[in-house]
Structure formats: structure tokens, C-alpha cells
């Protein structure tokens, strides 16, 4: 019995180790390239380590300056955080209404949200959206972009949160309201704590999409002061000229590390919080 446990454990670790290797090796190669000198990067691109004596840490400082990284990361963070927050507020209210209040026509409203999830929407809506945003004078502002991301994020989030909320018996709400709670209290005191997994999912999904998005910032956030990180990275790539891979990779490394740290903190909070607050019966 114990031997079986051990074998399973070894297997588990092996699988995880292989997967981690597949992930880490390319990243390691990226890091190695990020400190190569300009000549080295063209001649010895395939090697992991820079040639001896040719470690060029200045790539990081020049990446920071050229790519306007500080400002771009800040912009990306602001836009992502505000958008995700608004998405949660707006989508949760709607999900609550559909799943818990179950008012007349809620099925149709849900269907409305879900139906357009599938369209390759960005090209279809690009031009009319621009017309609207520009007529509100919100081009090249964070608010304009946030509105678009919220609109884009609503379908998935409502769908997700609705099906999540539906897993709780409605009697829970009714019991609470008999005890004298009004709707807002029910939401805050009972449902929200239970919704952590659903909210975590929405937050993760939307943050990733918004953080990585390229086309909306391309069209709306042109100025260096407003630009997000995906756009700034593009700056390292010329059209006809040779790409500065070493600086580009340094920029990527600079940007990825804080995100990873945030994820580690965030992951612990939510997922470990789940174990204590999990659904009972």
C-alpha cells in the first residue's frame, strides 16, 4: 500500500518536472538572450549563454528607456485593474439578477449576452466602436479603452457567474430574507464570500485578455504616455530593420516578472481562501 503511494508520488513529480522543464527551458533561453551583446545576438542566437565577456546588462536599462516601460506597465496595470473591477461589479449584479432574482425575461437577457460570445468580434465592431468613442471624445484616454474592455468582458463574465451562482440552492436566499436581510445584504454577506472561485476565474480570465490585448491599444492609445505594454514591445521590432532581440527580451523579462509575483500572491489568497469557505452541503 505504501509502495503504491510512493510510485504515484514519483510519477506525479516526474510529470510536473517534465512540464516545468518544457516551460522553463524557453524562458531560460530568453533570459540568456536578454543579456547578450548586439553582435552576439545575431551570431550566437541559439546558445543559452552569452559568449564569455559579452554580458550586456545595459540591455535592461536601455529596454526600460526605449520601451518607455515604466509608463507602459503603469498604463497596462491601470487599464486592466479598472476594467476588471468594473466588469466584476457590472457582471455580478447582472448575474445575481438572472440567477437569483430570476425575473421575467432573464432567460432572454442571458441568451443575449451568451449569443455574441462566439463572434470573431474585433474586426466587425472596430469601426463603429471608434466612431462612438471618438464622438464622446474619449480616444486616447484610459476611460474609452476601459469602456470597450468592459463591454467585451461582460458576456463571458455574466455567463460564468450566472452558472456559478446557479449552483447554490435558492432556498439559501429565501432563508436569509426571512431572517430580515435585504438583497444587498444577501449579496455582500452570503453570496460574495461563496463566489470566490467564480470571481477568481473571471478576474484571471479578464486580466489575461486585457493585459495581452494589442488591437485596441493600437487604435486608441497612440501616444507614448497612454500606451500599454503590448504596444511598447512592438516598438522594438522594426519593419525592415533587424529586430533588437536582446533588448526586446530584456523588456519582456522586465514586464513578466512583476506579473508572476502578483499572480503568486493573488493565487494564494483566493485558492487557499476557498478551502475554508467552500460550499457546505
Amino acid at each position, binding site marked *: 500500500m505504501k509502495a503504491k503511494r510512493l510510485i504515484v508520488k514519483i510519477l506525479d513529480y516526474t510529470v510536473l518536472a517534465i512540464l516545468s522543464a518544457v516551460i522553463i527551458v524557453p524562458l531560460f533561453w530568453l533570459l540568456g538572450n536578454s543579456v547578450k551583446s*548586439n*553582435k552576439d545576438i*545575431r*551570431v550566437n*542566437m541559439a546558445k543559452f549563454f552569452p559568449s564569455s565577456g559579452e554580458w550586456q546588462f545595459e540591455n535592461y536599462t536601455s529596454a526600460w528607456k526605449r520601451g518607455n516601460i515604466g509608463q507602459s506597465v503603469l498604463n497596462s496595470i491601470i487599464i486592466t485593474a479598472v476594467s476588471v473591477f468594473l466588469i466584476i461589479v457590472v457582471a455580478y449584479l447582472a448575474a445575481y439578477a438572472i440567477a437569483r432574482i430570476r425575473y421575467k*425575461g432573464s*432567460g*432572454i*437577457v442571458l*441568451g*443575449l449576452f451568451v449569443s455574441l460570445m462566439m463572434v470573431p468580434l474585433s474586426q466587425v465592431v*472596430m*469601426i*463603429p466602436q*471608434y*466612431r*462612438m*468613442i*471618438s*464622438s*464622446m*471624445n474619449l*480616444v486616447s484616454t484610459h476611460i474609452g479603452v476601459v469602456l470597450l474592455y468592459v463591454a467585451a468582458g461582460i458576456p463571458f463574465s455574466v455567463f460564468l457567474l450566472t452558472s456559478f451562482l446557479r449552483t447554490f440552492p435558492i432556498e439559501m436566499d429565501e432563508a436569509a430574507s426571512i431572517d430580515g436581510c435585504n438583497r444587498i445584504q444577501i449579496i455582500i454577506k452570503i453570496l460574495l464570500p461563496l463566489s470566490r472561485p467564480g470571481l477568481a476565474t473571471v478576474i484571471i480570465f479578464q486580466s489575461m485578455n486585457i493585459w495581452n490585448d494589442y488591437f485596441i491599444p*493600437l*487604435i486608441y492609445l*497612440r501616444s*507614448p504616455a497612454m500606451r500599454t505594454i503590448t504596444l511598447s514591445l*512592438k*516598438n522594438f521590432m*522594426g*519593419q*525592415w*530593420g*533587424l*529586430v533588437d*532581440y536582446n533588448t526586446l527580451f530584456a523588456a519582456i523579462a522586465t514586464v513578466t516578472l512583476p506579473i508572476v509575483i502578483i499572480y503568486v500572491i493573488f493565487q494564494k489568497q483566493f485558492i487557499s481562501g476557498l478551502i475554508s469557505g467552500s460550499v457546505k452541503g
Partner: protein
Amino acid sequence: MKNQFMKLISLITALAMIATVFTACNSSQDGNGSGQANASEEGQSAEATQADAKEIDFYSAILKEEASILVSEMFTEETGIKVNVHSYDSADFVQAFMVASNGGSPVDVMLLNGQDVRNFAQNGLLQDLTDSPYTERVTETTIEQYTFNNRVYGIGAKGGNSSGLFLNMDVFAEYNEDIPETIQDIFTFNDKLKADGKSFFAFGGGSKYMWPMWYFSVFAQTSNNQPIERTEAILLGEAKFTDEDTVEAFRILQQFAEEGVYQQGFNGTDSDGGKAVFVNGDAAAFYGGTWEISGFLEAGMDNLQLIPFPAVTDNTDEVWLQTGNASDGAWTIYSKIDPKRQSAAEKFIEFITRDELIASLRESDNADLRDHARVSCNKNVPIPDDADPLTIKQMEMLETMTFTHPDWIYPGEITTKLQDILQGLTGLQITPEEAAREWQDKMDEMLESGYDFNAVEPLSGDE
């Protein structure tokens, strides 16, 4: 069931109506392209309504952002006119521009990539500049490049560039080879190189936009030095891609692939990968263009020679035209420019095409500005006497090249089709005849849909 359906329809309609009303209310504010901005300006200085605007929007495709901003600041310093710079990669330019212009953002001056000028003109986006005095400043061929239907739509920017074969003389020395004059020379040298796991050409076929160049130079030879004329004839429907000159060109290109003159896996390597193979010394030659000179110099290649594409047919006496362009881009004015900004825009064009300015940019700290001015299409801005040998060679090669590339006059779909079939041809997936047939089918489709090579439609609707 039906009840639910009706409710859904009415809900959607209601939403759509609300949104439409909402947008309509806001849209009615931007009447003529300048929207809110002009409204406040006009409010401030009532007398100034008759005066010219002191602001322009500059859309830049071939000059990087920092450089565009620098040169705009120089302009503002001299004239006091504010410039809003919008800089996009050439790849993103059309899309971003389309969205911006549809949204009613003001557009005044555009620095277009040469390949887009004809398309923009045909869509009615460009102002007729035939009578502009500044057309005098640039060379004849540059003007010809941007003349459509006998009207001039752009004034050349940057300089001429020719395609050419870069030779790594170190590799040639190693194998004791002379400069090739025919493709037979290339094939013989290539056999030697193959034995050592190298190849004659380094090329990034994965970046498919780099393929058409090969076709153009070979086509120049198979069409008896008439590549542009033949292309125009095909686009007018008077000739076909399935004619012998195109098929012969395809045949030759496929022969290249069959002989293995490219490095292994070339269609899976992008243009940077291709250049890396060359810089590494794993290939003897790189077919690119004079626009790559700066890049190679920076990578430390100091033993390079630049030659025209060698003879690929039996006729080795003729001086064959290379594919090239008299200028890389064009300064243009938007056809729907706000009339109040017209003179400001013209001032900008005057400034930016000035001989003295271009000469002064050669001393700039900004590498892009230096590159912009390195070779100029202005009549009176020759290269300096102490230019590097490759730049001098570049000027020489400008003598024996076409003034524009065929894909600068193709419509978009024809270009894309060519890129695809060249990949297929060199990947040995289709025969030359099949490739030509596929290409001509696309052309036929377009002609049937009413494509007119010479038509320059005015831009419909009001701004």
C-alpha cells in the same frame, strides 16, 4: 416559445434603437472631420475663423515615431504650427488609418509607404498635387512613380532603393570563387557549399512579403526588360499571368528551390532568421535591397559587395533591370482635409521636402532621421563625397532599376496571392503552370467584379 422569441426581438430592437439614438446625438457634432477640437477653437477666437488653422495631423508610415516627432518639432519651431504625430508600422497603417478616418478624426498630411499610394489614390483619399510647386524638387522618376491617370498624387520621400545581391566576400574567398554572372555560376558554387552544409542564398521565406522581389527581378529578364509595362497590361486585362514570361519566371524560381540554393527550411524562417544565417557566414549571398545596408553595417559585416541580380536566361549581354523604387514613400495630402488646414499642410510639405532640411538631417542624432536622409530622391541633394562604398554602389544601381515595384501597383489581393504561390512554388507544392493559373484566376475574378486599374474614384460621402 413564440412569445419568448418575440420578446427577444423586441428587446434587441429596443437596445439597438437606444444605442443608435445615443450615437446619433453624439455624431451630429462632428460635421467636418475636426469635431470637438475645432468647436472650442472657434469659440475662443471668433475673428480667427477666417484665418488658417494652426494645427495639423500628420500620419506617418515609414518614419518611426521618435523621428517623426523630432522633425515635426523642427517645423513647429519655424512656423508655430502644431503637429499631432500619428505613427504606425507599415503593417498596421492601413487598418489603423481606416479606423481613424472613419471615426472622423482629422487627417491632413500623410507620409505613405510607396506600396500604399496607388491604393489610397484609387480610393480617393489623396489630393491631386499635380500643380504643387514642390514636385519640382524631386526627380522625374519619382514623380512618375506617383502619377496615376496623368495626375500626381504624391511627392517622393526618402530615397531610391534598388534590390540587389549582397555577397559575403569572406565566404567567396574561402571557396576561391569569383563573383557570379549567371545562375549557372551560382549553381556550381552552391554544390560546393552544400557539401559543407551551407547554401548559396540565405533567405527568410517565412516572411512571405519578401518573396515577390525574387519574381520581379526574374520577370524583368523574362519579359525583356518590360516588367512594369507588362504588369500594367495584365492589370488592365490586356495580357495574362499565364503568358509565357510569367510562367518562365516561375519555372526559374522553382529551379532555384530544386537545386537547393536556399538554406534548409527557408520557408520556415522569417526574414530576421534569414539575415542571421547570412550574418553568421552560413551562406554566400543574401538577396535583399539597398535598404538593408545600414542593418548589415551595424551587424559588423565589413566585407560585403553589392551586385545586381545575375542573368537567369541565356541572354547574358543585356543589362537587366533590377526591381527597385525611385523613392520609398510619398508625402501626400488627405483629399478631405479641412480647408482651413490646407495652407498649414502645404507649409509642412514645403518644409519637409526642402533640400537644406534633408541635408541637415544627415547630421541628426537620431538614427532613423539619418537613414531617412541618407539617400534622397530630391534632385539637388546628392550623396556626400565621403559616403561609404555600399551607399555609392546603391546610387549606381539606381541607374539600372525600375522606378517602382510591380506590387506597388497591384491591388492587395493580387499581391497576397503572389506571396502565397511563391511559397508554394519554392516549397515544390505546385507547378509553375498551376501557380500562374491560380494567379490569373484571381485576376479574372477581380476584372469580372469591375476592377479598373486606371480608375481614381473620388471619396464618396461627406466627412
